[in-house]
């Protein structure tokens, strides 16, 4: 009896003490620190290298910070590096990339979201089959489709041109490129939107129908405002994908509308004597700036959007 009462007096009382340096925490934060190192290393190397001069690169250690910081490589990558006979650097392609990016992102997301919505809420015979085919399409290497798509674009563009009596062509115009980005964005985006719309309660859709809203009414007034998180996810994925695209940008456009990645490829792949690693790294970072900024700024939304939508099979 005496023991018990002593224990009652001296035993644990009040809030449990938390040890900041518990072995568990050391393991968790230790692991995460190592992981972060692995993920940051290449970025660090790229940044450090892009700020060094060539002699320093040749002698030095790639991990050491620059002894003499120079922004020359950045200037060169942006406005001086040559592609063939044009020596305007990446700047030449930047506005083209933006011009390609905006309609492509917009159209591809619009088509995929409407398709996902139709797949979930307006099923028709065989709709799941079409969806399965789309998913299958995610596995086809893009390059295999280049020629057939060229032919399809040529014929469709020509047909539209004939019908409308104009010079309209899809090949070599930005619209051909928009279509191509829409096609190749379809599988993953439709999967995302379909999964997201599945998680929207069916009753909401029914209520809207009773309220007299039709296909587009429900899409624009009910679904769209509810789906911001998943639109953010889709937007991030598409901005990244389309901005980084080289192949389609170069095949389905013309030199005057070549995106930035074409210049990047030219800078990185054409060696003027010695590989100018610093310029390459600066060019790479400059090209990656847009998607990187988007990730750093809206990364939180991205994760929230995925949590909201992509988790259901």
């Amino acid at each position, binding site marked *: 009896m005496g023991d018990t009462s002593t224990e009652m007096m001296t035993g644990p009382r009040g809030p449990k003490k938390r040890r900041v340096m518990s072995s568990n925490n050391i393991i968790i934060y230790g692991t995460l620190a190592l992981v972060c190192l692995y993920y940051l290393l290449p970025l660090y190397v790229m940044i450090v290298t892009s700020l060094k001069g060539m002699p320093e690169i040749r002698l030095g250690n*790639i991990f050491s910070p620059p002894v003499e910081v120079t922004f020359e490589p950045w200037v060169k990558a942006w406005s001086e590096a040559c592609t063939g006979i044009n020596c305007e650097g990446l700047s030449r392609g930047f506005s083209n990339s933006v011009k390609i990016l905006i309609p492509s992102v917009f159209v591809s997301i619009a088509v995929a979201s409407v398709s996902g919505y139709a797949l979930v809420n307006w099923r028709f015979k065989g709709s799941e089959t079409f969806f399965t085919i789309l998913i299958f*399409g995610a596995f086809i290497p893009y390059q295999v489709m280049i020629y057939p798509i060229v032919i399809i674009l040529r014929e469709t563009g020509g047909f539209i041109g004939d019908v409308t009596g104009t010079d309209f062509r899809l090949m070599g115009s930005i619209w051909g490129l928009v279509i191509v980005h829409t096609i190749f964005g379809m599988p993953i985006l439709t999967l995302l939107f379909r999964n997201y719309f599945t998680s929207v309660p069916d009753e909401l859709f029914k209520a809207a129908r009773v309220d007299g809203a039709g296909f587009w009414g429900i899409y624009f007034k009910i679904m769209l405002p509810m789906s911001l998180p998943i639109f953010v996810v889709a937007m991030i994925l598409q901005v990244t994908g389309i901005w980084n695209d080289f192949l389609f940008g170069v095949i389905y456009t013309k030199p005057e509308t070549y995106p930035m990645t074409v210049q990047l490829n030219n800078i990185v792949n054409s060696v003027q004597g010695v590989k100018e690693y610093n310029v390459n790294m600066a060019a790479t970072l400059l090209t990656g700036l847009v998607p990187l900024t988007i*990730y750093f700024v809206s990364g939180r939304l991205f994760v929230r959007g995925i949590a909201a939508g992509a988790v259901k099979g």
Partner: protein
Amino acid sequence: MSSTDAGQLDTAMKRPPRLLKNLAAKFAAVPMVLIALVIFVGCTIWTIYHSFTRSRLLPAPEKWVGLENYERLWSESRWLISIENLAIYGFFSLILSLSIGFILAALLDRKIRFENTIRTIILYPFALSFVVTGLAWQWILNPQLGLQNVVRNWGWETFTFDPLNNAEIVIYGILIAGIWQGSGFVMVLLLAGMRGIDEDIWKASRVEGIPAWKTYIFIVMPMMRPVFVTAIVIIASGIIKVYDLVVAQTSGGPGIASEVPAKYVIEKMFFSQNLGLGFAASTMMLLSVLIVLIPWAYLEFGGKKNG
């Protein structure tokens, strides 16, 4: 005539044919149907057909040669090496992406500090193109300039780490970069899935005294099946298509040690100007995808049709 009759007649006349019902919905699905049928099915058939022809620089549907391209394909050591590399890369990429992604997600799920920062750090490589990834890692793994050189300068003279220049392990060098780029997205997917799991599961496992790692592996993981499916689709589609990364890092070298099927296809089509052979190789790739995908698609979507 009673109003009921009128009503009946009214609707009877308006009876919408099945095909015209929900016209807007059908109209909206046209792009999807077109893309699925014309592009993915149509182009696949086009590709398969041309794999039986002697198409060189241009598609030549009239030059039928039967299985010739396939015989040639399977006799080429480069194709066999490509397949082997894809199998190694695919296996490890899938396993490592999923397990690294899962472990990182579990660590971040432990309500740690700086979660946002760490998550951003792990995710940012996904924003970069493969060309960039390949280039950065090519450089870090370059024996004269990169890691090996640095470690040797520290005094460990015999340290050797040159995966990109050693034909035996070059594919693992590519794997390092591939994982670096892709595991962040997997981590985010899985983290999202983890957060979607009922908190009560955690309460239950705490009450029962199950260690956290066991809860993750035996309880949480099976509950996340749909997320894993999504993640696997995304990883696997990336694996099949791996091309840019190899080109940027090694161009298939040393020798032909790091060749992959997508690269084989592209180079046969555009370098060797042998479209037929390239199409045969891509048909083989499609076939292997189908073999994996069809049973899965059937299980995943086939059963839910009535839902």
